[in-house]
C-alpha cells in the first residue's frame, strides 16, 4: 500500500512538473541547460559499464535495449 501511495505521489508530481514546465524557455535563456552537468547522461562511459554490470547481475529490463549489444553475461 505504501508503495502504491509513493507511486501516486510520484506520478502526480511528474504531471505537475510537466504542466508547470511547459512555460516557454526562450533561446537566450537556455545557457544553464547547455552545461555539461545538465546532460541527460553526464558520464556516458561509466554509465556504459554500470549498465553492463547490472545487466549481468540483475533481472531488470532496459529502456534502451534497442540500442543493441550482445553477449551472454553468463558469469
Amino acid at each position, binding site marked *: 500500500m505504501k*508503495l502504491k501511495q509513493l507511486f501516486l505521489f*510520484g506520478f502526480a508530481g*511528474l504531471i505537475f*512538473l*510537466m504542466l*508547470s*514546465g*511547459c*512555460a*516557454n*524557455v*526562450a*533561446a*537566450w*535563456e*537556455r*545557457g*544553464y*541547460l*547547455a*552545461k*555539461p*552537468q*545538465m*546532460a*541527460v*547522461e*553526464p*558520464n*556516458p*562511459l*561509466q*554509465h*556504459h*559499464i*554500470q*549498465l*553492463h*554490470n*547490472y545487466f549481468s*547481475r*540483475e*533481472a*531488470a*529490463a*532496459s*529502456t*534502451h*535495449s*534497442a*540500442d*543493441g*549489444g*550482445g*553477449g*551472454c553475461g*553468463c*558469469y
Partner: protein
Amino acid sequence: MQGRVSDECSNSAHNQSRVIRSAGTASKALQALTSAAIVLPGLMLSPAQADDGGRINFQFSRYQEGKRDLFGTPNNFDPIRADVLHGNGLFPLTDRAKFSFSYTQDTWSGATPITTSPLAANPYQSILANTPSGTTVVGASPLIFPRGLLLDRNLNPLGRNPDGTLAQDTRSVLVLASASPETRHQANFGLGYEWDEAAINASAGFSLENDYRSSFGNLGGRLDFNQKLTTVKFGAGYTSSNISAILDHDSSPYLTKTAFAKQIENRGGSEILHGERQDWSANLGLTQVLNKHALIDANFGYTHSQGFLENPYKAMTVIFVDPDILNNGQTTPVPGDVRALLEQRPGQRNQFAFNTKYIQHINFFDAALHLDYKFTADDWGIKTHTFDASWVQPLPFGWMFTPRIRYYSQDSASFYNPYLISQQNFSRQAFDSLGREVWVDSLNPNNEYFRDANFNLVDGAGNPVNEATLLVEPKTVAFDPGQLPNNFSSDHRLAGFGALSGGFTLNKQLAKGIALEAGFEYYTRASAFKLGGGGGNGFADFDYYVANAALKLNLESMSLTKPAGGMHHGHHHGHTEAHGSTDHRHRHTQPAGLMYAHMLDKPGQFMVGYRFMYSHQDGKMHHGTRAVSDQVVVNQGCTDENLCRFTPSYMNMRMHMLDLMYAPTRWLNLMVMPTFMDMDMNLRELDGRPPRAPGVHEHTGIVGHSTGVIGDTLMAALLKLYGKRGHRLHASLGLSAPSGKTDIELRRVARADGGAIHFGMQLGSGTWDFVPSLTYTGEHDRWSWGMQVSGIKRMEKQNDSGYRLGDAFQATAWSGLDLSRWLTASVRGVYTAQDHIHGDFNMFNARTGPMDFPRSYGGQFWNIGVGVNVNVPGGRFAGNHLGFEWLQPVHTDVNGFQLVPKGALAASWSYTF
C-alpha cells in the same frame, strides 16, 4: 552502445558551454546563445546531433567480486573478475552525416555458481594437501551429486551436529565451479544523419565468445518540437544469438540433461549444448525542458525474447524422495537422492521498462541534481524498482566530481527456487503389466526378459533363455518430468533481492580537448534489502567493486588549438622554421609495425595514438628450421621420463596499445604506452603420445584457452641526436614495467589443479626490462628510408613466477615511396633474435607439451614487411595518420619445438596536435 549514444551528447553540450563562456563581446555572446538554442535540447540526446569534429574514447575497467559465503566450507575459489577494454569513436563524414564505431573486449575468470544445494547435503568435498605438519584441508571441490542426504518427514533437510545427532538444517549453499579465463569481443558500427530538427541513425554489430555468438542491428531517431523544448526519441532493434555451450567435463557426467537431449552434440569427447534465441526491442522516449533550470527525460522500453533463454551452465538441484519410504508410516529420516537437472526457463519473455529522470540545475553550486526512477515488469513475474541519484559538481581547473547512490530491488521469478523436492524416484525398477520385474540385455535394450519362480531368465513367452550368452540387467524407468514444474531455475539473479551501490566519477579536462575520467563503484547485494521484505536467499549475497579509467579525445577541440596554418598540416611540421626551407617535411612514413621510430618536432606538441598488432601461428611443429613429425615431438619435446602428450594447434595474439607522446623540447620526446593484449590457443593430442593414465583428466582441446587483458607498460624517452636536411638520427631509452600478469592458471578440474598456463599465454614478462633503440631516417623527394636497431634486456634474474623471458635484439631497414601527397607505400626487412626462457615456473605447471618448457621459446626470425601510410594533409581529418603493415615470415629458426608464425598485421592511428 548506450554509452556511445549518450557520450556524444554530453561532449557537445560541453562544447556549447565552452563556446558560451569564451564569447567576448555582446554580439558574440548573442551569437553563441543563439547557436546553443538551435541545438538544444536535442544535442543532449542523440548521436547524430553531436555538433563537433569527432571524438575517440579509450577505457579500461575492472569488475571484481568478493568471495561468496559457503558457510564454513574452505573457500579456495577465486571470485569472479572481469577486465573490460573499450574504445569508441565518432567521425563526421559531412556536416550532417556521422560514422561511429565501438569495440569492447572483456576477459573474465573466477568461480561462478552452477547450482544451489541444501547445506546438509554436503555439496563440497575437502581438498587435502600434505604439509610438514600433516594433512590439512586446503580447499573444497564441488559435488553436484552428493550422497547421503536425509530429510525429516516434512521434507526438511537434516544436518549433522558435531556430536553426530541429526537436526533440521534448511540452509542452502551455492555450489561453485571455477572457470579458466574467457574472452568476449564486441564490435559495433553506426551511421547517422541529421536534419535541423530531426536525426536518424542505424547501427549493426556482433558479439563473439567461444560459446555465444550474437549479431544485432538497430534503427533509431529523434524529432524536435516546440522550438526544441520537446524531443521525441524512438528506436527498434533485433538481436539474434547462437549458443554452443561446452558442458563442463567435470560436472556433465553428473548432470541430468534429458530435457535437452536433442540439442546436445557429442564432439571429440565433449558435449556441446546448442540453442538459438531472438530478441526484438523497441524504445520510445521524451525529453522536455521544464524551465531555465530543469528538464525531464522519460523512456519506455519493450523487449520480446524467445528461444533458448536458459543459462546453459546453470542447473537445478532436485531431491528425489521415494514415495514408498515417505509414506511407510514410520518417523525415521527419509533418504533424499540429490540430482542436478539443467535449468528450464520459459521459451519466451516479454519485458516492459519505464524510467524517468529529473534534472535540476542548482544555481548556488552551479551543480546539477539527477534523480532517476525505473520500473520494470515481465511475464516471468519479476518486477523491479531502481532509484538513482547523482550530483554533478563542476570544480575549478577543469574538474568535475559526480557522487552517486543507487538502490535496486527485484521480485523473484515465478519459477525460481533454491532447490526442488520431488516425491518420486530418480530411477526405479520397471515392471510389466503382470507385475513382473523386467530385465534387458544391455547390448540390445529392446529385448525384454523376466525371471521365473526359480530366478531363471525367461523371454516374454516364458521360454528359458541362456543367460550366459547375454548381458542382462534390470530395466529401469526414469523419473516422470511431468511431476516437476515446467520451468525451474536456481540462478540467484532470478531470486528476490535488493542491492545498494554507491560511487563517484571524477573528470579532468586537460588542455587541447583531452580529458581523463576515473570512476569507482561499490555494490552490495542482499536478500534482506528487497522492497517489502527479505527474499530468503541470503546464501547468494555478494558484493563487487568496479574501477575504471578513461582517456577522452575531442578531435575538434584538439585541432582548434593548432596555430593558424598548422591546422591542415598536422604532420608536415618538419623543420620549416629551423631551416627556412619550405619543401622539407618530416612526415609519419615509418612502417606501422615499427616502434620508437617517429619523433615530434615542436616543443609543446602532443601525439595520441593507438596501435594494434595481431599475429597468428599454426601448422606443423618445427624444430630449428624444419617441420617435425608428432612422434619426434613426443619423444624429444618434453623430458625422457615424461613424454609429450599435447602440442599447440594454433595461437592468436592481439595487442592494443595506447600511444601517448609529448615533446617538452625539440630534442626530447616522452612517451607512455599502456598495453592490453589477449591471446587464445588450442591444443591437440600428439599422434603416438603415451596412453592416458587412468583417472587423470586432460584437456581434450575442444575449446582452447584464452587470456587477457593488461599487458606490460612501456615508457620511453626519445632523444634527437642529429637532424640535418633529409637525415635524422634519434635514440630511445625505454623501460617496460611489469604490469602484465605472469601467474595465470588454468582452472582446477575435479581435484586436480590446472596449474600455470603456458609461458606464451602469460600476459607480461614479469620483470623490469630495458628497451633501447637507435633509429636513422632519411628522406629525399618522394623517397624515404630508415634503419633501426633495438633490444630488450631483462633487468631481473627472474620474475615472481620463477622465470625470465629471453633477451631480444632486432634490426630492420626499410624504404618508402610517396604514391601521392598523402599516401606512402613501404617495404622493409626485419631480423629478430630472442633467447630462450631462463628459469621455470615456481608453481605447478602441467608440462603436457613443448609449450610448457622454457627451452622451446625464442629463436631467429626473418620477416618481410609491406605497408602503407596515410597522412591526411587537410580537410576534416587533417592531422590524422593511419598505417598498416603486413609482416610475412620468410625464414624461421626456432629454439626447441614451436609453432612458427604465419604472419602478423600491424595497424596504427595517431593524431598530432
